[in-house]
């Protein structure tokens, strides 16, 4: 009961947040100088007033701003995100074609980052001050500090160009005509490099966070209580230290999971991964406003959604949340 109404309240709140984002994005883009009709007319080589007006009428750009907004919002409610003038295709279709690829990439990277981040962080905390700890800490620092695109380029250079172990481009081998299991394996081979590249940075973040958080929790009174009960060290670490230390990690991971979906632009571009990150990049270069708006909307929706999921997960892992 409590949990259901909690979810309902958060959902309603999320809808309002999304609405605000849509309106803000819409207005911001209209603020940019020049409208798409002018740009298109210019590129078509016929920038005379009449043609521009024709285009404006065709796309509804001659109507007052609030009416344009109203029409757009009405469309959004029915999942009609408008038409991409550039690609001559519905924005929603374009996005939903690309979304699975992005989700596959970021999902893999996220799982990798979280699993190994927590494992390494916990290991470092358990061995604090010893060489294992120093090694992990330095490794995390390096992964954290190295720019993503550099890691991407170097890994392509090393693993696909020199060693030829893994493909460094695209999501599957074009023209190979794989089906079934072969196709899955092919996608997996393509996935490894971009997922690891994207995941390494986040792994470093979770490693550092888990380590710091565990060291803090180890000083807590209830850990001393656990020791005074005569529990074995392994059980103390698992049941008392790790469970509490993971709470801030979950918060951070939840925020980042959402951001990752919209923020894999760099990785997708370098690896030519056909996801929405690259779609956004292309839309930006081509001033494809409707498509850009659509991508913004979807990535904001994902962020809002993941925040909700995080809050939900939190109600399970931290019993105190319900009341506050």
């Amino acid at each position, binding site marked *: 009961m409590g949990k259901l109404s909690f979810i309902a309240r958060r959902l309603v709140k999320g809808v309002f947040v999304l609405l605000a984002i849509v309106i803000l994005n819409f207005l911001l883009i209209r603020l940019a100088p020049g409208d798409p009709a002018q740009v298109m007319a210019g590129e078509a080589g016929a920038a005379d007033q009449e043609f521009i007006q024709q285009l404006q009428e065709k796309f509804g750009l001659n109507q007052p701003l609030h009416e344009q907004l109203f029409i757009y919002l009405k469309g959004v409610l029915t999942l009609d995100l408008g038409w991409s003038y550039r690609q001559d295709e519905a924005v929603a279709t374009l996005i939903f074609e690309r979304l699975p690829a992005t989700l596959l990439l970021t999902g893999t990277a996220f799982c990798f980052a979280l699993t190994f981040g927590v494992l390494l962080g916990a290991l470092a905390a358990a061995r604090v001050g010893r060489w294992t700890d120093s090694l992990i800490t330095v490794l995390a620092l390096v992964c954290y500090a190295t720019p993503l695109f550099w890691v991407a380029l170097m890994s392509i250079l090393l693993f696909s160009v020199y060693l030829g172990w893994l493909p460094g481009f695209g999501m599957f081998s074009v023209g190979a005509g794989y089906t079934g299991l072969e196709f899955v394996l092919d996608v997996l081979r393509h996935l490894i490099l971009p997922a690891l590249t994207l995941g390494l940075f986040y792994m470093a973040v979770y490693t550092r966070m888990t380590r710091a958080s565990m060291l803090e929790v180890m000083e807590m009174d209830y850990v001393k*209580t656990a*020791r*005074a*009960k*005569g529990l074995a060290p392994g059980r103390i670490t698992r049941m008392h230290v790790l469970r509490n230390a993971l709470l801030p990690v979950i918060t951070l991971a939840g925020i980042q999971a959402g951001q990752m979906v919209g923020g894999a632009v760099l990785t997708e571009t370098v690896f030519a991964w056909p996801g929405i990150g690259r779609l956004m990049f292309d839309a930006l270069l081509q001033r494809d406003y409707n498509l850009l708006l659509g991508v913004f909307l979807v990535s904001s929706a994902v962020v809002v959604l993941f925040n909700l999921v995080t809050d939900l997960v939190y109600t399970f892992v931290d019993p105190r949340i319900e009341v506050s």
Partner: protein
Amino acid sequence: MNNQTSDKTLLSIEDLTVRLPEGADRDNAVENISFQVNRGEILCIVGESGSGKSVTANAIMGLLPRPYVEPVAGRIVFEGRDLLQLPEATLRDLRGSRVGMIFQEPMTALNPVMKIGDQINEVFDAHGKAGRKERKEQVVELLRSVGLPDPESLGDSYPFRLSGGQRQRVMIAMALALEPGVLIADEPTTALDVTTQAQILRLIRKLQDDRDMGVMFITHDFGVVAEVADQVAVMQLGEVVESGPAQEILNNPQHPYTQRLVGSVPRFEPPEARGKLSAETLLSVRSLDKTYVTARGLFTKGRTVQAAKSVSFDIRKGETMGLVGESGSGKSTVGRCIVRLLESNGGEIRFRDEIDLASLKGRGLQPYRKHIQMIFQDPYASLNPRRKVGRIIAEGPMAHGTSQAEAHRRAEELLELVGLDSAVADRYPHEFSGGQRQRIGIARALALDPELLVADEPVSALDVSVQAQVLDLLDDIKQRLNISVLFITHDLRVAAQICERIAVMQLGEIVEYGDTREVFSNPQHPYTRELLAAVPGRNWSIPEVARKAVADQQLQKEVL
């Protein structure tokens, strides 16, 4: 104490020395200490902070952060074995099964994300005792035995649903799950309200009787000692300076340090009235209301807590008015509303019978701020660590237009007034002890020549001997400068000593209000009676020899 072990001896500490890491304020945390915990007895280890009490307890439990803090000599003999020689695995077996321990802070001593029942179950688990079904019954039985309500369903609750006192009961249940021979209690009631403390003390007493346990009870409070101890060992700077039967130590302390400690305990009887009180009212509070709203969201109304309900009282010129009550009674809220650190929701705060402070805002309030100043509880958190002491004191007057040179000159005077050297103005707060910091806090409050000091638990964080000195200082300053003090405290002993009148608060309301002697000798409200009855050691009258020791020391200081 009789340093021979007898048949009754369960735990015997023999010439124990525990080394501290290099760079600590002394070489050894404890040095050559010896005492015994006997079956069916409570041994109180008494001492001020830094005396080595907790290190001793942790050494017994094998919980020292070795090798930084390392036992280097002596023996800890329990059931015929020297605990210091046992391998960790064997020691782990003893912990929780043969020796139980409870801690000072019940609010943080339980894992917040684990159910109560599971946490108790872990003890059985770790020591491989009892089957699943049996355990469930045992958990319920344990929770019942420590007097917790609804033990059947409580095991399924998380700690945050429980009050501090209830959590301490859970801790006790956990420590006693496997019927240990010895219970080590490290300041188990220090963080609790006085009525809760009385209940927990009774509970420990009863369980110890029922089970014929030995209890090692660590405390800094001689009132608590008077309440529960059979035997006492007094520790000072890592050494046991005196030990013996409780009645001996309480009524006829031999060692000068023990005498000073005992003599510093505030007397429970309020002193005779000191001269005539002025009839002039400095501040009158009328129907003060303060409501807190928490967790208000976009769609939620939020929960409201009425921290002060129609509170009314007067403070006369030159008097110390006590506001006493337990945590959550709203006493600090009232104090903060008067200083205008909080906005009240209703009522009047009339100053010098002419102006209602509650109605003033911003610039209008500014000139009145200096008349009412505050002294805070925590001497560590209430001074800016990056400011020099002189600057901290001078800041208030400078904000009110005093020149920098003049303000600093005045700061040095004030430092001398509160018993510090004027040269310390150039130092930073971390260079001072808790008591010295509280003196600085008092100097800061006095810098604006206030007419009223609001002192919120100003001595609660201090050791008893330091507490006595700070109380003396406050009393002295009040008389010398003829200022009024609103003294907020949970400690009725302290209130008895320093307050001319007191107001007792419960759940945001003043339930009783009057002359301290009258309230103490003839309490009208049931809650006041309950509070007074809960004061530990109220039937123990502090021996004259101890009073004299403190007075002599005072005299010596003044002569020097």
